[in-house]
């Protein structure tokens, strides 16, 4: 029953559960006024229940059985799921796993596995803070990548500056900032902002607690590494993200869209792919 109704009932000094409504309306020690009030309440409740029922039927319900049938009609080819998995391994850079998967499943990768090793070497170099090494490797791979990607190049240089500061090489850092980064900053406002933030690291004694301290976090290295990884993939005419996570997002989105109109078995836990029976 609604909040109003329960308030009403308690106001009347009556404690009613769903079952006791019939008992009290059967009539025991009630006088005319209370009886009349009770009848009105009775009708309120009836009306409410009818409304709820109407709402329930306006949303289409698909039973577990019907849904299972629709699922069984879907044909998924093994070679396609294999390709999806290979695409994941290759894009995420699991070189050895991709090689083994090729042998164990006979699936051909959609990109040359040799290029993955090179790409992973660059990524690893950035993740370990060896930015100079990374830049050299990227240029060996494809000099156009950095030429056509000024933002990436700036971020790599910025990372180099961060590493110099981290290693306490203050003089070198300042020289580097002024010679290599300042000119970039002049060309581009957002670069300038980034440069100022980075140089600010030098001004603080306790870098871990300063406002720009996050630049020294490993997450900054990972961010830059990710950027480089994406740029290399793009230069090889490959999508920079694996397809599978997008499909998972599509599933979540499609289910949300469907929820507005239909009650059907959903998958709430992606990791176990278990179907929940529909709410009705």
């Amino acid at each position, binding site marked *: 029953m609604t909040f109003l109704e329960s308030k009403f009932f308690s106001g009347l000094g009556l404690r009613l559960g769903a079952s006791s409504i019939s008992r009290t309306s059967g009539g025991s020690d009630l006088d005319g006024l209370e009886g009349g009030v009770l009848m009105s309440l009775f009708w309120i409740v009836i009306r409410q229940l009818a409304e709820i029922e109407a709402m329930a039927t306006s949303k289409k319900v698909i039973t577990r059985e019907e849904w299972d049938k629709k699922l069984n009609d879907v044909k998924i080819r093994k070679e396609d*799921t294999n390709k999806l998995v290979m695409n994941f391994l290759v894009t995420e850079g699991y070189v050895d796993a991709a090689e083994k998967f090729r042998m164990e499943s006979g699936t051909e990768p959609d990109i040359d596995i040799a290029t993955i090793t090179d790409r992973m070497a660059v990524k690893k170099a950035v993740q370990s803070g060896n930015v100079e090494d990374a830049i050299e490797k990227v240029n060996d791979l494809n000099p156009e990548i950095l030429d056509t990607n000024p933002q990436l190049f700036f971020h790599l240089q910025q990372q180099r500056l961060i590493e110099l500061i981290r290693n306490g090489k203050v003089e070198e850092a300042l020289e580097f900032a002024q010679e290599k980064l300042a000119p970039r900053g002049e060309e581009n406002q957002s670069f300038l902002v980034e440069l100022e933030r980075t140089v600010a690291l030098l001004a603080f004694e306790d870098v871990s607690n300063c406002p720009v301290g996050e630049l020294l976090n490993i997450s900054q290295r990972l961010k830059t590494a990710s950027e480089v990884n994406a740029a290399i993939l793009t230069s090889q005419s490959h999508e920079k993200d694996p397809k599978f996570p997008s499909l998972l997002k*599509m599933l979540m989105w499609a289910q949300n869209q469907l929820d507005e109109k239909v009650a059907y078995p959903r998958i709430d836990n992606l990791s176990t792919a278990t179907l929940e029976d529909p709410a009705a």
Partner: protein
Amino acid sequence: MVNNHQDLIGSYFLGLWKQNSGTQTPPAEDDEEEEAPTELNTINTYGGFLNVFPDKLSVQYTSVNLHGHDVGVVQANRPAPVKRLLYYFEIYVKNAGAKGQIAIGFTAEGFKMRRQPGWEANSYGYHGDDGYLYRGQGKGETFGPTYTAGDTVGAGINYASQEFFFTKNGTIVGPVYKDVKGPLFPTIAVHSQNEEVRVNFGKEPFFFDLKAFEAQERAKQQMMIEKMSLPQNVSHGIVRSYLLHYGYEDTVKFFDMASKNSLPPISLAQENGCSEQYNMYALNRRKALRELIRSGQIDEAFGKLCDWYPQIIQDDTSATCFLLHCQKYIELVRAGMLEDAVAYGRAEFGRFCVLEEYNNLVKDCAALLAYEQPQKSRVGYLLQESQREIVADTVNAMILSTNPNVKDSQDCMHSYLEKLLRQLTACYLERRSLNGDQGEAFHLRSVLDRGNTG
């Protein structure tokens, strides 16, 4: 219990074989079979006012425009196909005639063929003389530029957004909401003396960059989808369980090694402990059997099964035995040992012919002998990797079913990844059917092929 699992699993994989043989067209692919308009319909036009050229792609107004009921209207021979993201067609105005009263748009079946599209209910028309959009009333609304001789004008339907859109010389005009359901025919109209228009239903390249527009519209939807957030490392976990499910042992080993060394390190959530255990069940043996089957060593596979899981091949008429025996036969044919193949067939196929579900499949196998180059025949599919894969997957599922902890045979047949993709496909189909069956469905093939655009 084991037998129940086995039966279900067996019939599932036999079903896969049947699909692989190409005798069943998957329902999802009939999206591509929806027919599109190719030419103008000369049967339902009012011949008195216009002339449709023999190629059925050009129209000329032959009469003299006297009033509002002598419009020369032509519809396409078919309604616009709906099971896709967009539909589009174009016209080129060769001659604007006396008054340039040309129109392009869409009309429903049974349209009054003497009126401009847009002047009657359930029709939409973009008119060249005033640049107005008419959508079912006599009075139009300001919409876009006028157009005349030398212009290429297009009209399209966007099923995702349920809108019409038009183009003039490659630039978009519109869009406008489509509140007409049901099949719509591409329609063109001419109304003053000597007006002449040529239509293009896609045989020639369009002036408007439809592909770019399509990519743009898809990207819009993608943007909304990308906003969804996934639990951390969920893709990683599902990929791993796929590898374990099918017994790709070496791949998993290197996958795990790399995951530990990655930054940040990816640790396996222990909450899925029980499913972990089920996935790892008999991993090494399943890998071994897959290897044997994929390399065509069926006798050895039988041997191992005898040693390790005799219960799977106990029933000599089971689906597993059938698949393995057929594969052995196929391998003999592949190796050119046709006499041995015949002998083998004679020994083994007999008992399978009795059972209905095996009948057609046995016939396919036998048919291999009829061809000098069987790989090019209609039963050539048997010699492909995909057939070995089906047998390997069957054995894999059967072994998984011997795990006493298995409750649902579905778990043995389908990996989580597959279940998720099925759910995705079903949701898209349901969504589309609620939308009057208009729009795109989800096809894994298209998604896989589409990428690599950088």
